[in-house]
Every structure is written in structure tokens, then in C-alpha cells.
């Protein structure tokens, strides 16, 4: 039906744990449609983060190929990957991972330092991103002066500021209360529906998963698709 953004073909990932080899992902095949919003659920240690790392070019599969947006990232060098990540992927983490020494504005500008934009262009774009997440009034605040929900909004602004097509969110609401959780999820939904971002979101929260179009269950190294209610 719709265009494919990412394809995993025969992907396995094995970690060396001491003398033992642990196979975290086993011969996975997966297609992700452009514009999709997918929730990934599954028990702890089942390989959800590993899957996101492979899609985001933070890690490489032991075997198989990962193709995102027409680029076969599983065969790129580390420096190619880091350049690729800066424009193609936005990462959102459970603990926000903002830089404490920078204001909200400067945190969001950070990815733009890697571009050729001028200082005023960087500031402008970061301002727009902060506007999208509803934080215009907090641009000069440091992370420690923000609530958890606000920090996560800054992190989301940072993830979208260089306009990547794929957002990878690893338990983005895992540290937030119910009310803030639903605000963040609504924001992700808006990014998905109105801004066309493809979203892969790991979550433990069944209610959170309801915001997605599909749910993938990750267990014992395999993925099982489950249609959303």
C-alpha cells in the first residue's frame, strides 16, 4: 500500500557476554512504512533497544541488512553513520539526555552545529522546533529549571530540528506521570500525523501503545505484529 521507509532483512544480533554468546535478535525481517507510528512492547531484555539502535545506525547487525530511506546503513563506516544520523534520525530517550550546561534553545540548536546554517538560521530553526513542542516561553531555561515533561519536549524539539524522517523513541514516557505521558504521546501523534514523521516507540505502557498505528511484540529475539485496537 504505502511507501517503505525501512527494511530489515534477516537481521541477527549477537552479544558476547563473557564467554557466552547471547543472541538478542534472531533472523528478523521487518518493513516499516513511511508515515507509520509503531509501538514496540515486550519484556525487559528482549532486544527492543537493540532493535532501535540498529535502525538508528548506532549499532550494526551481526548478520543481515538494515536499509533506511534507501541507504544500506548496515554496511556504512562509523563516520558515514554519524553523518547519516545527523540528518536522518531523531532520537528520544527515557531520561531526555539533555546537556545540563546548555539552555533549552542551545540544546535544540546542537544538531544544527553540524550543518552549514548561520548562527541566526540555527536560532530560528531551533525556535520553530521549540514552538512545535509548545515551549516558546522556556527557551532560556536550563534543563534543571524544567519539569520532566518540559525536558522531554525539549528533547523532542532537538530530535526534529534537523527534520529527520524517522524518530526513534526509547520509552519516552517511562519517567513521566500519567498526565504528562498523554501530553507527550499526543505531541508524538501530531508529529506523526501533521508533520509526517515515521515513529518507532518502545514502551511498557499498553495505554501509551494505543496512540500508535501498530504494536510489535518483541520476545525471545523475534517480532510479532499485533494490530492496534
Amino acid at each position, binding site marked *: 500500500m504505502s511507501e517503505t521507509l525501512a527494511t530489515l532483512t534477516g537481521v541477527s544480533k549477537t552479544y558476547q557476554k563473557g564467554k557466552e554468546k547471547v543472541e538478542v535478535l534472531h533472523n528478523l525481517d521487518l518493513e516499516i512504512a513511511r508515515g507509520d507510528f509503531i509501538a514496540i512492547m515486550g519484556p525487559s531484555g528482549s532486544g527492543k533497544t537493540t532493535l532501535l539502535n540498529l535502525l538508528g545506525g548506532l549499532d550494526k547487525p551481526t548478520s543481515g541488512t538494515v536499509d533506511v530511506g534507501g541507504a544500506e546503513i548496515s554496511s556504512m563506516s562509523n563516520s558515514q553513520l*554519524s553523518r547519516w544520523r545527523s540528518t536522518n534520525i531523531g*532520537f528520544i*530517550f527515557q531520561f531526555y*539526555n539533555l*546537556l545540563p*550546561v546548555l539552555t533549552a534553545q*542551545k540544546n535544540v540548536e546542537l544538531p544544527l552545529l*553540524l550543518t552549514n546554517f548561520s548562527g541566526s538560521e540555527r536560532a530560528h530553526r531551533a525556535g520553530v522546533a521549540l514552538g512545535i513542542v509548545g515551549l516558546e516561553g522556556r527557551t532560556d531555561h536550563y534543563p534543571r529549571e524544567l519539569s520532566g515533561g518540559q525536558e522531554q519536549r525539549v528533547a523532542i524539539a532537538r530530535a526534529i530540528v534537523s527534520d529527520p524522517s524517522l524518530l526513534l523513541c526509547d520509552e519516552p514516557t517511562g519517567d513521566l506521570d500519567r498526565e504528562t505521558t498523554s501530553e507527550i504521546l499526543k505531541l508524538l501523534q501530531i508529529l506523526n500525523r501533521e508533520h509526517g514523521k515515521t515513529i518507532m516507540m518502545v514502551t511498557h505502557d499498553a495505554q501509551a501503545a494505543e496512540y500508535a498505528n501498530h504494536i510489535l511484540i518483541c520476545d525471545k529475539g523475534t517480532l510479532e505484529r499485533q494490530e492496534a485496537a
Partner: protein
Amino acid sequence: MKYFGFIWKNVWRKKIRTSLTILSVFVAFLLFALLSAIGYAFKSGVDVADAERLIVIDKITLINPLPMAYKNRIAATEGVHSVTHSSWFGGYYQDPRVQFPQFPTEPYEYFSMYPELKMPQEQLDGWARNRQGAVIGRELAEQYSLKVGDRIPIQATIWTKADGGRTWEFDIEGIFETEDPRGSTAFLLFQYDYFEEARAFGKGSVGWYILRVSPDSDPVQVGNAIDLQFANSPNETETSTEAAFSQSFARQFGNIALIVTLILGAVFFTLLLVSGNTMSQSVRERISELAVLKTLGFSDRLVLGTVLSESILIMLLGGLLGLGVGWLLVQGAAQAMGAFLPGIFLSSQAILTAIAVMIGAGIVAGIFPALQAMRLSIIDALARA
């Protein structure tokens, strides 16, 4: 340059720690500035010295005067191009504790003997015409706000006048400068003729002779020939090159130079430990931040560069501050004791060396933490956080 703001913020992540580190860098470079200025002062006599200028003093002691009659005999010695003389007057102006040297000499001869001293010809002529005339160096003129036309009384500590007076008055006829930035101009020259006529004792003698050898003559041979002439006379002489004269003086300070080097070595070694520790702490406490940077697409080399830049920036902040304060102190010291320690001076060579040392020390202190940051594995770092 667009990363500067980011680097700056990281430098100040722990304000107290960074301030203390910068303070220790500051102290190290302040010391460096002061010690190198002092070292320079001791060394400069040798550099300023002119190899073709010889100094003839009494063989036994510099304090013994030499007969005026030697002048023609020295001038007649083969290989001598020109000769003049000078003496130690040892008076003071205004305050007995603050002295500057005064020398009675021959106006034209002295200035052609020291071509590095520059003064307008009409001032030199004016001085030569006025028996009670004197000329002073720019440093003195500035220190005491003296100008041409002023009358300056000098109190004698040795040379009382024939009339019993101790006050020698001179008309300032000129102000000279030196082309050598390390040479002092904090001294006064006045006419030997006036000195000779007015002094109560010691007539017919001079303190020492200064001569220039002809360009094609060997200064050592000329010196030996002069000393041979006066051998077995009541005033035997000792002739040496100005450079040798200064060198024997400087050699006494050779050990000081070694001690200075050792102290600086110890200070800088400690400095590297302190700032290296600061940098490695700073990297250790932000492993996850560094991993985030890499996640965002900062390359390994860029991460290395930013951490290294932080280290260099800390060194430059403390170092330039130390150098700046050191420079001010050296300026002050030059004002206060320039007459006795000419050439106390923070050379541009020393400043460039210091800046190179700052950058070098920044790299040495920061390289291991920076490499650690560069090699960091994103997934390990993020999993640990």
C-alpha cells in the same frame, strides 16, 4: 568557531573546579613570566655587548683609576680604531636610596663609541658646547619628568668639589635613546672636562677606557698588546671584550638559571597533573552526554576536538592572565630598578614560548580524556546511564 559557545559552557561545568584549575595555571605562568624576565636581564648584558668594543680596567681592581696619560698610548696601539673613557661618579638625585649611574666622559667620543645610543645631533653639539651640560637617557627623563633645559643637582658621595661643595649642577642638553630594547638608558653622562676641573682630588685619572678595534684586527691580540704595554708599570691593565666582561658577570648567575629551570619544571609538572585530573574528571562525569553528542551525529574527531579545546582553553585563560599580570609586574620592576638590572624585560620570544607552552600543556593534559571521549561506544555509554 561556532563550537566556541558550546566549549565555553563545558569548561565552566563545575565553576569552582575550573576556577581552581585556572588559578593554578595562572600561578604557573605568572612565575614563568617573572622568572623569564629576570633570566633575560641576566642574559641580556651578554647579548647587548659588542664584540669589537674592549674595556681597559686596572688589573687589580676596577676601583683603581687609570692615568689620563694612557689614552694616547692606547690610541696609538696597533689595531685600535678609537678610544674614550669613563668614570664612576656615584652621586644621587633627590633620594640617596634611589640611585642611577652617572658617568663623566667625552661627548663626541662616547656617542661614536656607542652607536646604538641615539640623540639628535644638535643636542650632542649643545652638550659639547656647555661645560656643565649633561645628557640623560629616555628612561630617566620619563621617571623624573626631566626635559632639555632643566637644571639637575646631583649630590656627590665620592667626588667633593674643590670648593668643598657636594652638589654638582648640570644643565640637561639632550635626551638619548637606545636602539636595543634590552639596553638601559637610565643613566646620566656629563663632561669629563668639568669633572676634572672641579673635583677636589684624583685629578689626571679616569675610571676605565673603552676602545673599538679596527674591523680587520683581532680583539684578543689588540687587548694583549695593550696590557703588555703597561706591564710592570704602577697601573697594570686588564683588557677584555665587553662580551667577556658581561659573560663573567652572567656566569655567576648560571646556577640561578638552572634552579629557575628546575622550579619551572616542577611547577609545570604539577600543573599538568592538576589540569589533566580536571579534564579526566570532567569527561568521566559526562560519559552519557558525550554519547548523546555522538548519537546526534558528532563525529569521533569532533568529540576529540571539543574536549581537547576545553583543555587548551583552560590553559589559555589561566596562562594569558598569568602572563598579563606578570607583564605588569615586570613593567613595574623595570621602572623601579631598571638602572641596576637593565633589560628586565618580558621578550616577545618569552611570550610566544609561553603561549606555545599553554597550547602544548593543554594538549598533554587533555589528550587522554579526549581520546577516551572519542573512543566511547554510544550503546555502552547509554546503557550504563
